[in-house]
């Protein structure tokens, strides 16, 4: 079965991973801009990173038959310096116009500070003004519940936001209901220790249904598994769920969500 990984950091992965993704049926990789594991020293570093996501990674993925799309933003970990973040945000329009860019992301909160919120509000403003799709990163571990609630507060009070074009990512058991009930797409990230596992993701699908749920690996430079989506598919099958349900979550749902971006030009394989 084919699948789409709507959130994976290809720039941090090897060609072996791309080959494994292709062999297991991955057709599309969505790559949000994120924190590369170190704070960048200036806006030029961001400029080059955005070029990497829009020029080099699409070519690298295409060598394995994977269609690569990117999201543009400044992550919350580097958003504490609002003036610096503002300089990075000024770079974004040029890249948002590029043909493989889906929208603003991944943006959100990390430690839920006032400065992070100030930067996030500017990113939301840019997204709304440009009618972009938006992908939100919710914080890790202890900060997740509070940060998710804060992000949802910001979105709820902005009536310009089209919730059907927003994904709130890294949902877990204590946040997914808030996101789905709010009318947003809920991303579930499969990580070995710090987010959801394939089995827990399957539990959430069973509890909340498959509508507006996206499952992703968010595989990056840390402990993560680029084949986490196939692991989820295996968990669903092992429980006896029909292929149609598995396909809906790993293929049709991401297509429905991503098709709302003007730059998403998915080419079905022959």
């Amino acid at each position: 079965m084919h699948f789409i990984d709507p959130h994976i950091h290809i720039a941090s992965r090897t060609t072996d991973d791309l080959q494994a993704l292709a062999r297991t049926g991955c057709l599309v990789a969505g790559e949000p801009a994120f924190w590369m594991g170190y704070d960048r020293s200036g806006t030029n570093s961001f400029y080059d990173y955005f070029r990497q996501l829009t020029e080099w990674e699409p070519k690298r993925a295409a060598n394995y038959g994977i269609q690569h799309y990117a999201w543009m933003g400044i992550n919350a970990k580097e958003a504490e310096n609002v003036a610096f973040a503002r300089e990075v945000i000024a770079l974004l329009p040029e890249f948002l116009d590029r043909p493989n860019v889906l929208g603003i992301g991944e943006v959100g909160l990390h430690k839920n500070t006032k400065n992070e919120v100030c930067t996030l509000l500017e990113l939301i403003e840019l997204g709304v003004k440009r009618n972009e799709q938006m992908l939100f990163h919710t914080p890790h571990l202890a900060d997740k519940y509070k940060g998710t609630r804060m992000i949802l507060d910001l979105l709820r009070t902005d009536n310009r936001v089209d919730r059907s074009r927003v994904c709130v990512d890294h949902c877990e058991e204590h946040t997914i209901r808030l996101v789905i009930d709010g009318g947003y797409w809920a991303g579930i990230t499969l990580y070995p220790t710090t987010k959801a596992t394939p089995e827990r993701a399957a539990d959430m699908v069973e509890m909340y249904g498959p509508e507006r749920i996206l499952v992703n690996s968010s595989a990056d430079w840390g402990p993560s598994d680029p084949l986490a989506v196939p692991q989820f598919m295996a968990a669903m099958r092992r429980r006896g769920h029909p292929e149609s349900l598995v396909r809906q979550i790993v293929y049709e749902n991401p297509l429905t969500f991503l098709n709302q971006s003007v730059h998403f030009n998915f080419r079905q394989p022959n």
Partner: protein
Amino acid sequence: MPNPLARDVFDHEFLTMRCRLLDLAAAIDRVGRADSQVADDLRWRQLQQAIGVIAGSEGNRAERVQMTFSLPYDGNWRHEYGV
């Protein structure tokens, strides 16, 4: 798809649950054998609370365990931040 029988789910999960409980018990013992104490560490208290959630009879354990490890949310945060 019809709801699975609890017995079937339990049969499938039992060894994994048993293994994870043993891993947890052994890790707690490992901390206990080490020098000094962690009883005053918030994370240790959260862990004890989470174990209580798992051992209790109320449902939604995963969600409630998540909440034991979560910072509280204050609905007035925007007023506090002035945004």
